């Protein structure tokens, strides 16, 4: 019996973007299957975050197609992406600094809002229900990510590592199918990175969320990823399992020149 492989969750074809004279992303194509953890690696300036920004529609593509669960993303407005089931974190934390951790998480649940402005002003039962549901959702995430003691703290005063986790939590509150993590481990120490690896696996296996992440830490990448895409100067070098990619000659050359292997990039525990 033929079992047809399910259609990929995210399909990127020939994605290209040009900023002035610079070709930041050049004919990038890849597909992510549902339930995978897919990593994008590459030097700084390779275009990885730009790909993220194209998927979340902060930038407009010059050419190419992005399809999510069969729907074309390439012309959608930025605020429509969350409703489809895509959530993201940012390289330089973009939290709501003047709000509490809880408020940040509650805002994350915005797409599942069932109340309107009038209902909110009058605090009708529908709004009340909406609030309680959002709160329950946020509390689930707080429990998962161990944020209980920071619940009512103002984000601006929290340590860097905690803020990175809050951002992931906020993305999770929108119940995404696809989670985009932009350099989640940057700035985290060894223990925090260890925790992060566990959380990524939890999110992927227990919550069933597909993860696309940009990362520099090769240990983390090898540990959690199913497949890896290496980029250089806006173009795809190769796609494969972590081992395949790390040993690919083009990748080695792009990172370090001809000699040497990538062990210099690993963090030694």
């Amino acid at each position: 019996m033929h079992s047809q492989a399910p259609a990929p969750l995210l399909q990127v074809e020939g994605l290209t973007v040009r900023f002035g004279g610079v070709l930041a992303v050049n004919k990038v194509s890849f597909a992510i299957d549902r339930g995978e953890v897919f990593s994008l690696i590459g030097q700084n300036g390779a275009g990885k975050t730009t790909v993220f920004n194209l998927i979340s529609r902060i930038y407009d593509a010059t050419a190419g197609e992005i399809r999510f669960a069969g729907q074309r993303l390439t012309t959608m407005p930025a605020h429509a992406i969350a409703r489809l089931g895509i959530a993201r974190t940012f390289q330089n934390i973009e939290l709501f600094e003047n709000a509490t951790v809880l408020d940040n998480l509650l805002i994350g649940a915005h797409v599942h809002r069932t109340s309107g402005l009038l209902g909110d002003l009058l605090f009708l039962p529908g709004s009340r229900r909406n609030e309680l549901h959002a709160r329950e959702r946020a509390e689930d995430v707080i429990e998962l990510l161990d944020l209980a003691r920071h619940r009512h703290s103002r984000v601006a005063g929290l340590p860097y590592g905690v803020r990175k986790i809050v951002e992931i939590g906020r993305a999770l509150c929108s119940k995404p199918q696809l989670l985009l993590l932009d350099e989640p481990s940057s700035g985290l120490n060894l223990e925090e990175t260890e925790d992060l690896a566990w959380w990524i696996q939890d999110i992927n296996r227990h919550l069933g969320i597909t993860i696309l992440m940009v990362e520099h830490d090769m240990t983390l990448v090898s540990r959690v990823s199913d497949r890896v895409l290496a980029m250089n100067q806006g173009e795809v070098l190769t796609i494969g399992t972590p081992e395949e990619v790390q040993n690919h000659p083009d990748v080695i050359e792009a990172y370090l020149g001809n000699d040497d292997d990538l062990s210099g990039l690993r963090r030694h525990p």
Partner: protein
Amino acid sequence: MDVVQVMFSGLAVGCVYALIAFGFVLIYKATEIVNFAQGELMMMGAIGGVILMQWLHLPFLWAALCAVLLMAGLGALVERLTIRPVLGRPQFTVVMLTIGLGYLARGVVTMIPGVGTDTTVLEAPYRGTVWEIGGVMLGAEHGIIILVSAALAIALYALFHFTLIGIAMQATSQNQIAAYYMGIPVRRLNGVVWALSAAVAAIAGLLLAPVTFVHANMGLIGLKAFPAAIIGGFGSLPGAVVGGLTIGLVESLAGFYLPEGFKDVAAYVVILVMLVIRPRGFFGRKQGKKV
């Protein structure tokens, strides 16, 4: 005939707007603060000139020079005492601070006996003189405004683009903490910027005084300079010139051709039009955030 005179005076008033807008833009370029008290600085320059001439009996040019220098000092002092402590606060708050400074300035000036409450005349030697150019009669007050403004514009442009201080000011405006790291004396520089800005405002006040007379509420004209800065694009010196002249001309022509009341709002209608066709002004830079 009339139209030419109207345009000439419009250009002259436009130059004053341009000078005040210069002041904004100078401060904005260096510290990204918008100084709502710029009009009041202009007013104080003019009042200073009047006081020096009336009470100390200084001749016009000496009074003007002293007024400009005193205002420069005042600008640096204001920066040191009130602006420096609040750098880094959200823009809204700092704007409110400058509005407060404007109130203070107006209030204190109103307390000065004589000039504070009356409308005074600044006895510039060229008052009342009329020039004849190509058969057209033009007031010397307007002509002097245009000439001095042009000279000042060129000098300031050169300052920002060809001197180390000017480049340092631009660096500070883009990333204060990085400028600190590079060894730029950010705080001292801000003092210089405010001093310069106040001096330019004082010159604008002294130029305007023979035309509109000197009184404590003169500074409200400064509100018109905002449209000028917007049209040019905040952060652009040539933009301030273009903006100021445009507003001056539009206002004069509106007063001449359109029914009563349009002159007062002409400047504001122009802003709204600009926001529709070109939000960042003719020379403004793109605003945005990189994530």
